[in-house]
């Protein structure tokens, strides 16, 4: 049994333990997010070890974005000032703050797509033929972008629609919460 197999088994155990803590034994909501991220990173490493390098890269980026959004959301709900905007301006600034986060994640996804497309394009050149370190990367990218191009387009459109809808939803919700909360405070403390 070589070192790679031992590492793979260790990562499988780490994934299961992290998953168990994330859904069952985690202490507090933010601890659950940390355990979830640990499991996702272990899974990403497993994908890389077994040769699914494209999937490993995508999972790494997506789990980082998920962790950022979830962790920030929890911190925002808990009212932690180091993660949210300053308390006196929180209700007023929150909509644009959230929009920036959502749009930033969308921009990151498009950036990842651009890098991904650049790799796929480079795969058609002689230079990329020498990239033996990522032997299946170009093959997966070719399958996704060329053979499954319509499905990829649908997924991209879905992601774009969800991002825009989420931005509007958050802006409306945060705006309503800001005005309603302020009204509630005034009525509670006249």
């Amino acid at each position, binding site marked *: 049994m070589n070192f790679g197999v031992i590492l793979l088994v260790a990562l499988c155990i780490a994934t299961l333990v992290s998953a168990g803590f994330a*859904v*069952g034994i985690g202490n507090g*909501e933010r601890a659950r997010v940390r355990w979830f991220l640990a499991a996702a990173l272990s*899974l990403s490493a497993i994908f890389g070890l077994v*040769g*699914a390098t494209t*999937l490993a890269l995508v*999972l790494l980026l997506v789990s980082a974005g998920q962790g950022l959004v979830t962790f920030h959301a929890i911190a925002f709900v808990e009212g932690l000032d180091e993660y949210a905007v300053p308390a006196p301006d929180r209700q007023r600034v929150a909509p644009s703050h959230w929009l920036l986060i959502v749009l930033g994640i969308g921009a990151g996804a498009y950036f990842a797509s651009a890098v991904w497309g650049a790799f796929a394009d480079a795969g058609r050149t002689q230079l990329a033929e020498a990239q033996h370190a990522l032997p299946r990367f170009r*093959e997966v990218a070719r399958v996704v972008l060329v053979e499954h191009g319509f499905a990829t387009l649908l997924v991209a459109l879905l992601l774009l629609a969800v991002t825009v809808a989420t931005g509007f939803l958050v802006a409306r919700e945060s705006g309503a919460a800001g005005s309603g909360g302020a009204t509630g405070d005034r009525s509670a403390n006249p």
Partner: protein
Amino acid sequence: MIDVEVGWMIVSSLSPLLFAVGAAGVFVRRSSLAMMAGILFMIFAAVLGLVGFDLRSALQGDAEASAGQALGVALVIVVAAQVIVAVVLLVARVRIAARKADASGVTPW
């Protein structure tokens, strides 16, 4: 890179275990975030299964061996979109509960 056959065996055994952990989290836990994480682990188990069958196809010399990975990539992207919506709805629900609990003094989170 790991040998294809060993990788297939390990990944195919991890996939049902991870799915079981996720399903247990969904059905046992009452916390919204824990249930959401459980659902995500179930989906990741499905992605692991896709990669496992992809490795199995590569072992058998199938020319379409990367189709499983391609489907896994698409699935991960859809999951990302799903999580964004889920977190926003979760935050909205908690904030509404927080406003309602202001008068009663009950901690909503």
